[in-house]
């Protein structure tokens, strides 16, 4: 079996094993599966570098191509480059930490973990796919379990949130499907075999008239998942209701599918369409960045704060994806990874704090730093990382986006960049407000004095995420150049076209 399909099979096998062990052992199976997957992703990274150093310059490495449905030319085609490897690593880290963050799940443990792994399978499949059709299938495979995970294991108005999330994402899928089919039917403008393979499609020129029609469909289709304003409202409610690990995976990885697709499929395959609608989507992205940040100021629920913060930070990705600038594109991918890690850390911590205090309202908390110093310090670290403090990953990602975007010769785009930059000031306001109210000051509630600090499994999740965030923030160059190189082949064709 090839390296990449193994990334799908490991979660599948984990799911099967889970089905046959009793409830108390399920989480251990999950932990082992996640560890194997993490090791595998790291090994994949090493063999990727080994192949590149050995002089393999092909665009995608470790490719497989199996015909799946001949008449429509659908293939099970897989391969990875610097961009997808980075996202695969992100996914395995988040699944790994997510398992430890859901260590305390008691209700229907087995079903929970199996559904969670189904989601993970979809995500891994999405990132290794080179065929738009299989990519779409994996995308759906990742989205559908969300409904169950939120609807069954959620909190608050969970049925409402689950339904809303599913309907909006399904609506987006409809756009997306039309977009993908549009790309497919225009993939051979000079006659010949139509194809779903996006590497092949990127080499040809889709007729401009088709691009004008299908670009907005595809971009919005992916954009909804990437919290494109004004289609972001499923995300605050969804996050607020979702259980911890689901929020982590969802904000950490699933929403990145949107950014990844918007960049790789929508913009890269249909540059003329993208250029045509650029200004509209730039305005929406700028609104999203600033509006999300202001929206977060007014929230009292920790999860809502973080959800609005995600809206703001994900808008950076869509913004960068519209820049037609390789450095900004690189920044978009860096931001996917950085935001994925940071938001996962936030949601993990919020889950841990909530499981202790039974409230997520910051005004009901206070002085928790004294009671749970480990979680408190970790929350501050997450906060500083999120507001773009140097030494953490977000600084690297944001600066890459800003530097790239600001090199644009159009004044409009530079002004838009300044507006996006202004949102990082507001980020400081809501991050410090939440952290200060919750963690500092005197202990508000006497009952909180006896709450336990982080358990070992909490520490595993939190420390791994912090280490990765700080590692990426301190030594960014290898990751940045890997992503940059990964974008090069497509970008060069793109400039030629």
């Amino acid at each position, binding site marked *: 079996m090839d390296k990449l399909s193994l990334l799908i099979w490991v979660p599948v096998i984990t799911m099967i094993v889970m089905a046959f062990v009793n409830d108390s052992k399920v989480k251990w199976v999950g932990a082992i599966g996640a560890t194997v997957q993490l090791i595998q992703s790291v090994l994949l990274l090493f063999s990727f570098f080994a192949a590149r150093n050995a002089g393999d310059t092909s665009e995608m490495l470790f490719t497989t191509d199996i015909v799946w449905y001949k008449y429509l030319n659908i293939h099970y085609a897989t391969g990875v480059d610097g961009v997808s490897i980075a996202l695969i690593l992100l996914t395995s880290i988040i699944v790994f930490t997510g398992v430890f963050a859901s260590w305390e799940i008691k209700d229907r443990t087995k079903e929970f973990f199996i559904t969670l792994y189904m989601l993970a399978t979809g995500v891994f499949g999405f990132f290794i796919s080179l065929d738009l059709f299989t990519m779409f299938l994996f995308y759906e495979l990742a989205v559908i379990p969300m409904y169950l995970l939120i609807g069954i294991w959620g909190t608050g108005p969970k049925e409402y949130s689950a339904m809303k999330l599913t309907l909006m994402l399904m609506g987006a899928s409809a756009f997306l499907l039309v977009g993908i089919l549009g790309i497919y039917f225009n993939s051979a403008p000079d006659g010949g075999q139509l194809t779903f393979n996006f590497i092949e499609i990127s080499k040809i020129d889709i007729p401009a008239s088709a691009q004008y029609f299908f670009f907005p469909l595809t971009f919005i289709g992916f954009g909804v998942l990437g919290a494109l304003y004004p289609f972001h409202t499923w995300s605050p409610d969804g996050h607020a209701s979702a259980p911890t690990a689901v929020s982590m995976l969802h904000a950490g990885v699933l929403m990145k599918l949107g950014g990844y697709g918007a960049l790789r499929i929508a913009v890269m395959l249909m540059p003329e369409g993208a250029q045509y609608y650029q200004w509209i989507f730039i305005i929406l992205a700028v609104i999203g960045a600033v509006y999300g940040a202001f*929206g977060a100021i007014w929230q009292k629920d920790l999860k809502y704060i973080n959800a609005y913060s995600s809206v703001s930070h994900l808008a950076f990705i869509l913004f960068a994806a519209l820049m037609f600038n390789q450095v900004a594109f690189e920044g978009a991918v860096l931001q996917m990874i950085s935001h994925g890690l940071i938001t996962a850390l936030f949601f993990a911590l919020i889950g841990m704090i909530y499981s202790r205090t039974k409230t997520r309202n910051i005004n009901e908390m206070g*002085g928790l730093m004294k009671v749970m110093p480990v979680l408190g310090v970790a929350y501050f670290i997450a906060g500083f990382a999120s507001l773009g403090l*140097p030494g953490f990953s977000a600084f690297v990602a944001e600066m890459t986006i800003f530097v790239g975007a600001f090199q644009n010769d159009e004044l409009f785009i530079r002004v838009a960049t300044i507006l996006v930059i*202004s949102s*990082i000031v507001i980020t400081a306001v809501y991050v*410090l*407000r939440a952290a200060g109210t919750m963690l*500092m*000051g005197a202990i508000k509630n006497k009952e909180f004095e006896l709450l336990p600090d982080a358990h070992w499994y909490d520490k595993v999740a939190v420390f791994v995420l912090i280490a990765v965030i700080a590692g990426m923030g301190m030594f960014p*160059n290898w990751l940045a150049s890997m992503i940059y190189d990964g974008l090069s082949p497509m970008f060069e064709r793109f400039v030629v076209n």
Partner: protein
Amino acid sequence: MQADFSYIIWIPGVLLASFLVVGLFGSKLKPMLSGAIATLAILLGMVLSYSAAFQYFLGKGLVDGTYQTFIPQNWEWLRFYDTLVIKLGVMIDPISIMMLVVVTTISSMVHIYSFGYMKGEQGFERFYAYLSLFSFSMIGLVIATNIFQMYIFWELVGVSSFLLIGFYYTKPSAVAASKKAFIVTRFADFGFLVGIFVLSYYTKTFDFQELMNPDNAAITNMTGISFMGMSVLSWALLLIFMGGAGKSAMFPLHIWLPDAMEGPTPVSALIHAATMVVAGVYLVARLFGLYVLHAPDALAIVAGVGAFTSLFAALIAVTQTDIKRVLAFSTMSQIGYMMLALGVSGYVGTEGLGFTASMFHLFTHAMFKALLFLGAGAVIHAVHSNEMGDMGGLRKYLPITHITFLIAALAISGIPPFAGFFSKDEILAAAYESNQLYFWTEWFVAGLTAFYMFRLYFNIFWGNNRAYEHKPHEAPFSMSFALIFLAIMTTIVGFIPFSQYVSPNLIPFETHFHWNIAIPSVAIGVVGIVVAALLYLKPKATADKMAKAMPGLYKLSLHKFYIDEMYVWVTHTIIFNSIARPIAWFDKKVVDGSMDGIAWVTNKVSDKTKGLQSGQLQQYAFVMIAGVVGLALFILYYLN
């Protein structure tokens, strides 16, 4: 011969190591051991800085009459474009060496002092971890080889400052002050960052040496592109100055500094008096060649802001009663002097006196202001209060603190032979050459400075000889040591011939003593002291009467010209209630509401139309036949 300064990297290196060790394992170590590790690290840094200073200024630095710039290390950290690369490195030139000396000296003294001051405090090791983090970041800022490195460490000193102001995190006022400091400076840094982007958009570089290169065509090009009445270079430099004004608490971005006094007093001495708050001055000095040669309009604004702030802060300092706040406003005022001096400076030869004077004042001010703060700390340590009203007659109980504080107060008042006299004299001389208005403003501020400083001094050490419940004790040795050391520095550093070492174009020049400046400036200083003595030496009601005679002015000064209230209004009324709250509402009701609305409409439509799927054959047949008939009629009609 190339001089080797590669050992400088060890200074931030050991400090980072100390931060990591104390920060990660501090809770497992004995508090004293944590303190000792951090103190040893900074002392090593101090030794290395001093040796670098001797090596540079007295030996290898000067080649052919010009001070050389050395870059022993410059590592690529993050590459954007081939020319736009963030590097981390070490840059050695006169002002970076000078700042190394300042930072390590003050930081070492604060480390030693804190052994006494922070003894027994909860979080002793955390305190030292933060100090190491701060010192590391500040040194990274000082030795930056490019503007992005400076920005990185700029943010890191900001966060260290946040952590240290909020050190007593259970105290709500400290938490609020730390947030305020961080957010206000963050807002200023937004300008700094945009300034960097504008500059790099045109020049395609972050590197200081390339930016300052007189042959850089991109810079000349920038001066030619006009945007809203100023060249884009001036805009970029003004935006960068906005960052500097935030850190250096220039009006109107000063509001965080007085509140920052919530932090432990040694922190106020280190960060909020001697080192971090002068980072803005250092930033302007770092880019001085650009300002003075290509953007004189931006430099004029620097001068104006500096002059205004120095007057504004001095007026407030006159009425404050919290001794640390008096010192905070005095710091603002003195940094205003430094900014003004930069603003009026030229570039070549003696025209560069302002630049030299600014750096000189930065140097001397660091010594005597740190001393004042540490002395205030010793007083607070003794009487457990920050309020002047709770003090008086302390000279008998705290003799060492008293003498050292007096020396520092004389220094800041510009009385010879103490350090402040020399540096202030040069600033006034530079202002005199440039603009009479600036000169007379600063001359007046010098009098105010002497007055409020001796108001403070007399109120603490003389005045009301009250009976203390607990007899105040002189500070322990660690604290007195730092006080004495800094008092000695304050007495001698004024004699350093600064223009031999620091000048805008790196070529030393000769300065002469300005009698015409020194006499009036000492005179106004003495007047200030005498007035303070008349009012406060003995407990008298004259001062209160004067305050009552001018209630408007007094209140305006006491309430710091109501700038804080304006900010509160802006943040609460504008940002929170007029922006954030409506946005949250809009999102919930309008954006989300329309999504829910679509769902609701779908639901209703399906509810109304579901009757069509009744399952009754008769109905289906009826509809079908009706359809066929309708269609037939339509076709017939249409064909006709």
